């Protein structure tokens, strides 16, 4: 248990650094909400090595802390809905045990953007912005794919030592 606490603290720090690095990269497509999703590496890694509960905890705490450090209350709200939906999708897909890390990560990326867009539509009480769904989901697919490949390599190489 004590060992786990220390480990989770380390992973949380790693996730926060990923958030920070991401906030430094001017990665912008002209559509708000498209992000790299570097922190998803940590979440996927935890999901496959330590367990679902731990992964969820780190993900939620990371979002709240990163929101206070590099964002604003709205980015927390946004990210929480995206993060929760993304985690749920990844958890369910992983449980089926038929799919590899890449596909699970793609589902995470796609659902993250879905969650954010739904929350945005609810906040502004305007459902026409759902018009951007195809573009945002494709962006989530592409970033999720690359994040998935990265996570897969990390898990295969050092997964058993975590």
């Amino acid at each position: 248990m004590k060992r786990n606490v220390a480990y989770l603290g380390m992973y949380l720090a790693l996730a926060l650094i990923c958030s920070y690095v991401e906030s430094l990269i001017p990665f912008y497509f002209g559509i708000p909400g498209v992000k790299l999703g570097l922190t998803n590496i940590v979440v996927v890694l935890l999901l496959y090595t330590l367990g679902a509960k731990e992964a969820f905890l780190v993900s939620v705490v990371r979002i709240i802390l990163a929101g206070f450090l590099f964002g604003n209350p709205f980015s927390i709200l946004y990210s929480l809905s995206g993060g929760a939906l993304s985690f749920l999708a990844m958890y369910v897909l992983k449980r089926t045990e038929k799919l590899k890390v890449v596909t699970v990560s793609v589902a995470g990326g796609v659902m993250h953007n879905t969650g954010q867009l739904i929350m945005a539509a609810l906040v502004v009480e305007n459902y026409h912005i759902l018009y951007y769904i195809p573009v945002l989901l494709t962006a989530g697919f592409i970033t999720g794919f690359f994040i998935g490949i990265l996570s897969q390599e990390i898990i295969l190489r050092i997964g058993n030592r975590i």
Partner: protein
Amino acid sequence: MNRRFGKTDFIVLAVVFAVLVFAVIFTAFKRKQGEFVVISLDGEVYREVPLEKDQEIEIKKEGITINVLDIREGKADMRKASCPDKLCVRQKPVSKSGESIVCLPNKVVVEVKGEAKGDFDSIAR
């Protein structure tokens, strides 16, 4: 290679990607130059402005200007915003029907719409 990428993964990813690309292309083709923008605040219509005339619109909430929308050459661009992240200001100008600019913290939505007279009017005519 099997540890990284299975047959199921390939099928699932290919199908999903194909659907997404199709959806993007489909929506891109459907876009047409819009005729006017609808500005809404807190989910209610604030103003409707034609895109033909170049002008600057101040969006006010309780007497304070929270956003400034610039209309130039048939395109609407968010100039100023009082929110901290300025995502709407950084966004590219919109001009095609269905496109929108959203300022989430201020709950401002700028939407481009088709003909100034909607479908209902053209049927009634």
